[in-house]
């Protein structure tokens, strides 16, 4: 298992989900002798102001994961305002009237908690992990900053510089990340997934505090938020606590309507090249595919298709025995590492993504040919039953392992809910995966893994100047 190279290459991929949908299920189809799985019921509540609350018990440790999810992210942003949801996420830690400055973080920290947040294309989430008797603190603070954020101009002036440094660190100075960002911007012409969550640098340079104030007022409202709590808690007690803290938060509007940026059909392959100072080539290939939202909510495709796609992604890239590991990394030795991603929980039309580093001395072109050949095999040949069963076992096992983490369980609930899917999707995951047939896998391969739907981005490495150490300016600089 190549932990070093895989980690370094994967760290640059920000938005993709790992192959398959790691979700929860109430009905586990493996017989598990001797151990009954804990109750997996999710309790859903709505407050009068439209806030949604989901509570799930996990009593193995006296801890709680508590998360507030806002239905806004990179894919909600118009051109010119890219990065604003992420910038707002940063500003949420800059204080309210009641808790100025960094009081939020200081109080959580004082109470032994972890706290952080993340912005993605489809949502923004604020999460803490605390001892289970500290949940009240989280609710009090989150309810306060849901509508009470100060958004000071001076603070923003400093924080936007921090965000620019973040962009430089994550993208501009990382050739693979930079390539991946360009690949998405080419894959989609209209679909707002084309824009990076962190925002284009030009938009960060132009961003103004008033933009943030408007963005905050529009999207941060109880009717556009879900609170998710997983841990050693009593659902009814959590509901009462939520009622008392979040209940009074005013919601002066119904949930804002999210913007659906529909992509016109792609009618032929797209290619781009990035010439960047780097040592290694890198290849990103995307095929446009539907998500669970396309199937379940918009009824654009049959409901079985996203599950067949999850199986397809896992077949190709899930685990050390996957086809690409077996054939491209080990067999033909064309790839040093390869990654396959499919975000089945995407709000908009999404992509099946391949990202790979050619093996030592091999080229992007060779690797692309080999990857396309694997897609052709999937058009022509049915996956055999044993391999299909292996994939299903892998996906089911992942589901069980996820129950070891309160954070991951809460994350899955938030991700599912924030794109408008019912939580029954989580319950059904295992049974749906189990019904995927080899014919269905072949059919989605034939429908979606076609050249006319393909975008290819290659990093063509340009010479790096040698990192020579200069002479120290003063002769007395070194002592041995």
């Amino acid at each position, binding site marked *: 298992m190549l932990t070093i190279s895989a980690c370094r290459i994967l760290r640059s991929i920000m938005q993709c989900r790992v192959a398959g949908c790691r979700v929860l299920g109430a009905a586990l189809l493996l017989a598990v002798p001797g*151990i009954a799985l804990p109750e997996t019921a999710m309790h859903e509540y709505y407050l009068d102001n439209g806030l949604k609350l989901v509570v799930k018990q996990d009593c*193995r440790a006296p801890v709680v994961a508590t998360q507030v999810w806002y239905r806004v992210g990179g894919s909600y942003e118009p051109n010119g305002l890219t990065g604003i949801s992420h910038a707002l996420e940063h500003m949420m830690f800059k204080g309210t009237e009641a808790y100025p400055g960094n009081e939020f973080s200081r109080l959580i*920290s*004082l109470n*032994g908690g972890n706290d952080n947040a993340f912005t993605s294309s489809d949502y923004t989430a604020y999460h803490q992990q605390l001892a289970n008797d500290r949940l009240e603190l989280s609710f009090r603070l989150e309810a306060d900053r849901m509508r009470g954020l100060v958004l000071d101009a001076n603070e923003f002036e400093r924080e936007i510089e921090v965000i620019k*440094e973040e962009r430089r660190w994550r993208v501009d100075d990382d050739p693979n990340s930079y390539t991946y960002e360009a690949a998405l911007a080419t894959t989609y012409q209209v679909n707002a997934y084309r824009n990076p969550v962190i925002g284009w640098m030009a938009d960060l340079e132009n961003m103004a505090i008033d933009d943030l104030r408007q963005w905050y007022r529009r999207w941060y409202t109880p009717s556009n938020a879900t609170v998710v709590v997983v841990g050693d808690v009593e659902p009814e007690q959590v509901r009462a606590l939520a009622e008392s803290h979040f209940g009074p938060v005013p919601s002066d509007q119904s949930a804002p309507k999210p913007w659906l940026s529909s992509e016109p059909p792609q009618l032929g392959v797209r290619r781009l090249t990035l010439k960047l100072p780097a040592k290694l080539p890198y290849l990103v290939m995307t095929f446009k595919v539907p998500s669970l939202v396309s199937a379940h909510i918009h009824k654009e495709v049959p409901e079985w298709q996203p599950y067949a796609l999850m199986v397809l992604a896992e077949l190709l890239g899930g685990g050390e025995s996957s086809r690409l590991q077996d054939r491209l990394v080990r067999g033909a030795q064309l790839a040093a590492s390869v990654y396959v991603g499919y975000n089945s929980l995407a709000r908009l039309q999404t992509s099946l993504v391949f990202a790979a580093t050619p093996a030592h001395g091999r080229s992007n072109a060779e690797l692309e040919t080999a990857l396309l050949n694997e897609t052709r095999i999937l058009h022509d040949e049915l996956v055999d039953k044993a391999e299909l069963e292996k994939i299903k*076992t892998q996906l089911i096992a992942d589901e069980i392992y996820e129950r070891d983490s309160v954070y991951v369980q809460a994350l899955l609930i938030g991700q599912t809910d924030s794109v408008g899917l019912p939580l029954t999707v989580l319950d059904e995951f295992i049974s749906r995966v189990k019904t995927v047939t080899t014919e269905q896998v072949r059919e989605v391969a034939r429908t979606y893994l076609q050249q006319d739907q393909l975008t290819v981005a290659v990093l063509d490495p340009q010479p790096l100047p040698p990192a020579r*150490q200069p002479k120290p300016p003063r002769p007395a600089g070194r002592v041995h």
Partner: protein
Amino acid sequence: MLLTQSASATPEIQHWVTDEGMDVYLVETSELPIIDIRIVVDAGYARDDDVPGLATMTGELLDQGAAGKSAQEIAYGFDANGARYSTQVSYDYTVLSLRSLLEYFAPALDNLIDVAGAPEFEVAALNRVRRHLLVDIEARDQDPGALAQYHFYRALYGVHPYGSPAEGEQESVTAIDQDAVQKFYRRHYTADGARLVMVGALGREQANQVAARLSTALPAGAAPPPLPEVGDTGLNGARELSFYHPSAQTHILIGHLGIRVNEPRRLALYVGNHVLGGGGMVNRLFDEVREQRGLAYSVYSYFLPRYERGPFIAGMQTRSDQAQEAIQLLKSELERMREEGPTEAELEQAKSNITGGFPLRIDSNAELANYLVWLSYHRMPLDYMHTFQERIRAVSLEDVQAAFRAHLYPGRLLTVTVGSSAASQAID
């Protein structure tokens, strides 16, 4: 305000030693049908000696062919049973890590025993892994952060093996042959000196059997000798190294030699560093560098205690024209901390965060298993977790001040920068 902590139960650890000398640590949990196994061997890349990359190569080859099975057969054997296997090569030790469902534990365990006990290091696989490492080595050169780490450790440690990069060097990796890997494996993967951690849905009797099987499968022979000490080599005075890289940011690492895991002042330094640059988003460096001046997204400090003396590092990345200002700021914060120590309020905040957050560090089987890897390798007492919060609470302001005076040397810093800042462009 120090918040009292309810007495949270820490897991009960059962410990025994197998006939071959392997230490076993078991925590039984029954709520989930999962078993986590970690085999910890004294085969970290600090054991590379003069062949950087040897430990990593050996670790990565284990599951690429064993007991007559090919890499694909081994991988299939794990995946088809819903198991996840990985080898992690760290500086002091290497961990063979298995997560398995209870239901399919038997075949997953058989596979693990083959990987741990009968790896073949077949030449074709060796050449393939070699090529992967060569890619990793090249990847370093396009990553200013990785370059900064690389140069920092080389400069700090000189010839001590802690100065070596995990993935090795082009020359050394190119020369590694089957013989070298086999010798390394037989010397460092011995049952004597290994630790076995098991967490999950298995009882003592079954655990005994698992331990016995793994113990007899691993190579026989004496445990490897201790690592060479890190003397006070290298830094009697401050030293600055700058490397040009065409990146928008300059990566900065400053530091010096730090402490061993068995250093008596380790916890005092841990608490003190929490105030300085370790405590999440509540610490001095975060406040001064990021919040007040917007100079960096990531800024931190830490003591990294290892079996032998690990480093003390403070680091950040910033737009290159700000690099000098950033370095001065980091240095002055280190000086300030050494001179004045933390305030009483800062100390209480840090202690409260550490003690209150402790249960979160072991609230899942996976995290508990990983914590036990560290405990087992360093032979911490079995009640370590039980007494941890108490020992943190007992750290006083004087303890922290004394610890910093003994172990923080702002006047003897190694400063490494990688980026396009002006200083590094003064090339001869």
